[in-house]
């Protein structure tokens, strides 16, 4: 099982029947797997803040509830997070944060262990799939015992690595739900919150003593010369190269067991703290007055592997001369037939500044499309387009476009769009509506008409919503039609006031849309002049091959379409002025 599959299994075995989330790599598969178990309630919420609030509500009603998100999702959910720490949870509440050291699929590399300390919420961190399954159960036990939300932190390497897991029988589900009134505990006005604030500190003290005897804070005394304090996946990396050193492996990374750490320090001569990203453990241990080596020798950035730890401790700069060879890079690309391609080709030709967002379309910043010029976070495209347009005044007129996907728009694009209408913006916003959450692998959202559990439901009409927000200029285009797409965006750029263009066509990989691939296109080598215009699309099947110059001809090569990859979307056909593609 992967770490994510194991977490889903652990939730089921722990008798947890309530989960809410927004998809985000590397957390997505937890919900996809969990939702397959019988008798569970699982939902995709519009964003992580809503997901956490839904889970808080379920816990208040007595359920064992979980909210699942990627690391940056916790930023979105931070507002309820900090206060649910005060109220406590009644039932039980666990928040899973899936961090992404090395930014495999994220816009930043934040270390969410800091959230545990910041919000005064305990955090567990498993090192592999088997532990992930067991730790999720322990997280719920701690939540129930101490009336506190509990974090479970994974990293990409834990979530997406597979290892051997032994499934156990699930606990029977006990319905403990009921309506209970307790204003002093759940109405966080200043008078009540001041009292709960003190309770939080009392709880932290109890949790600190609990951590001293917590079964998953494990000491292994072997070679007493070197001791390693670590947690999560780095434990495996270290153990791989230094199986004989002594270890203190922390299953709970916040709060720390101070006595246990002092005990370990007394038993070994030199201590290394092995942790990816921030010196989170290291700073706390150094603050205890214990001498340890950490970020003096280990990197702050990127995930580790066994070699990085071995080289740092053995003081080697790099492993002995390993052969290398530079080969052409293979960056990810929009799929053949992707509806975003035609839109971003058009935007490049219009020479506008495009504030972008989070989704597959972010990839269009790459050559040759280069149709996107900023990406910060979910929803930022709209606020930024408005801000740029306001700041640039006349200079920005007809030059600023914000682009956002359908799922991302629902996640956090609605309020900034309302703001554009309210504050009389001039920018154009394009919603790339591909009818799904494509980047994370086709998850449902409020405009798809289906829930996570596969039930039919309302299908949000984006056009009606945009109109209700006060946007008067609304157009819908098919991005496969390059000419109309270009004309419509051009027209909207010249108008006063904000405009929204909905660029509508389902993702080619989206099964329910039943997009049938058309016959692959071919290049007629006689007609092709080798002008390379079709290459500007950056479409994977299109390549260009050099050929011998014939006498009297300027042609240096011809385009070629790989029939195994082409799905006949027809964009290149619209671009070819010589009728060479058919």
């Amino acid at each position, binding site marked *: 099982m992967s770490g994510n599959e194991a977490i889903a299994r652990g939730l089921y075995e722990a008798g947890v029947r309530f989960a809410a989330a927004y998809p985000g790599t590397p957390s997505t598969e937890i919900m996809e797997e969990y939702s397959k178990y019988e008798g569970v309630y699982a939902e995709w919420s519009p964003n992580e803040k809503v997901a956490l609030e839904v889970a808080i509500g379920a816990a208040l009603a007595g359920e064992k509830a979980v909210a699942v998100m990627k690391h940056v999702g916790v930023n979105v959910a931070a507002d309820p997070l900090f206060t649910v720490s005060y109220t406590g949870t009644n039932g039980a509440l666990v928040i899973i944060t899936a961090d992404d050291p090395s930014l495999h699929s994220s816009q930043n590399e934040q270390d969410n262990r800091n959230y545990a300390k910041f919000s005064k919420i305990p955090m567990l961190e498993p090192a592999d799939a088997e532990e992930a399954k067991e730790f999720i159960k322990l997280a719920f036990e701690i939540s129930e015992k101490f009336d506190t939300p509990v974090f479970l932190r994974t990293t990409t390497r834990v979530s997406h690595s597979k290892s051997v897991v032994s499934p156990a029988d699930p606990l029977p589900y006990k319905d403990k739900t009921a309506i209970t009134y307790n204003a002093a505990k759940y109405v966080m006005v200043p008078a009540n919150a001041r009292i709960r604030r003190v309770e939080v500190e009392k709880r932290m003290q109890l949790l600190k003593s609990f951590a001293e005897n917590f079964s998953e804070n494990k000491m292994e005394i072997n070679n007493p010369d070197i001791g390693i304090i670590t947690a999560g996946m780095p434990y495996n990396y270290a153990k791989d190269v230094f199986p004989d050193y002594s270890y203190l492996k922390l299953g709970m990374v916040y709060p720390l067991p101070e006595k246990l750490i002092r005990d370990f320090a007394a038993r070994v001569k030199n201590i290394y703290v092995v942790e990816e990203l921030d010196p989170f453990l290291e700073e706390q241990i150094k603050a205890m007055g214990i001498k340890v080596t950490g970020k003096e020798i280990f990197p702050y950035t990127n995930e580790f592997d066994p070699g*990085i730890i071995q080289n740092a401790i053995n003081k080697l700069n790099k492993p002995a001369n390993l052969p290398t060879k530079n080969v052409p890079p293979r960056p990810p690309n929009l799929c053949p037939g992707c509806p975003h391609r035609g839109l971003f080709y058009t935007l490049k030709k219009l020479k506008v500044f495009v504030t972008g967002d989070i989704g597959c379309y972010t990839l269009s910043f790459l050559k040759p499309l280069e149709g996107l010029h900023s990406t910060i976070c979910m929803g930022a495209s709209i606020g930024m387009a408005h801000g740029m347009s306001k700041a640039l005044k006349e200079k920005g007129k007809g030059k600023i476009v914000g682009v956002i996907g359908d799922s991302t728009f629902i996640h956090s694009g609605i309020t900034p769009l309302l703001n554009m209408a309210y504050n009389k913006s001039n920018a154009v916003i394009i919603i790339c509506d591909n009818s799904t959450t494509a980047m994370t692998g086709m998850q449902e959202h409020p405009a798809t008409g289906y829930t996570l559990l596969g039930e039919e439901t309302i299908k949000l009409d984006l056009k009606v919503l945009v109109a209700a927000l006060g946007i008067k200029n609304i157009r819908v285009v098919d991005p496969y039609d390059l000419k109309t797409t270009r004309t419509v965006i051009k027209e909207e750029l010249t108008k006063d006031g904000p405009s929204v263009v909905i660029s509508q066509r389902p993702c080619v990989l989206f099964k329910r849309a039943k997009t049938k691939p058309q016959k692959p296109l071919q290049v007629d080598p006689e007609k092709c002049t080798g002008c390379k215009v079709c290459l500007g699309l950056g479409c994977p099947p299109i*390549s260009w091959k050099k050929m011998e110059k014939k006498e009297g001809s300027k042609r240096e090569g011809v385009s070629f379409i790989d029939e195994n990859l082409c799905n006949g979307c027809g964009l290149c056909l619209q671009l070819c002025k010589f009728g060479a593609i058919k």
Partner: protein
Amino acid sequence: MVNNYDVKSILLAGVGGQGTLRASDIMCIVMMEAGLDVKKSEVHGMAQRGGCVTSHVRYGSKVYSPLAKLGGIDLLVAFEKMEALRYMNYLTKDATIILNADEIYPPSVNFGDIPYPDDIIPLLRINYKQVKEIDATDLAKKSGNVKAANVVLLGAISNLMNIPSSIWEEVIKKSFPEKLVKINLAAFQKGRDA
């Protein structure tokens, strides 16, 4: 730079869409069935869209890390020819390399900006003794489906492991829908014979 205890490391490297991860899944189940501890690691997400796909598989009596270190891979299987060069620095000096003869051009090669390397095999042979090229895509076609190239490569890999072929065949049978089982078993055998 030696591996401790008996753990062996395999790196499968390919391009999104080639079935690299499927192959590594099958391989892991085979190892489990053979009674070994096994861990594997790969990266999902953006890598799926035409980019590089890699999977580390580590097996032995007790495996800690699902990731191998630089200079720590014993067997590299390149599902696409050029990908074999990209990960040379991961190999031990006695490593074995199996590579598919198939070439898939990335955008920079398609645009004519960078040439596709034409000295892949010689470059590998300078550094490593065991280099084997297999036209897995062609053998898959002959088995009845071009997509079975990943299973052809599994056949070639199985020759290097001390696990009975019956276990491999049983796992392959369970890994595909019934109508594809025959094709994949044929592909596996072609890989073993290659």
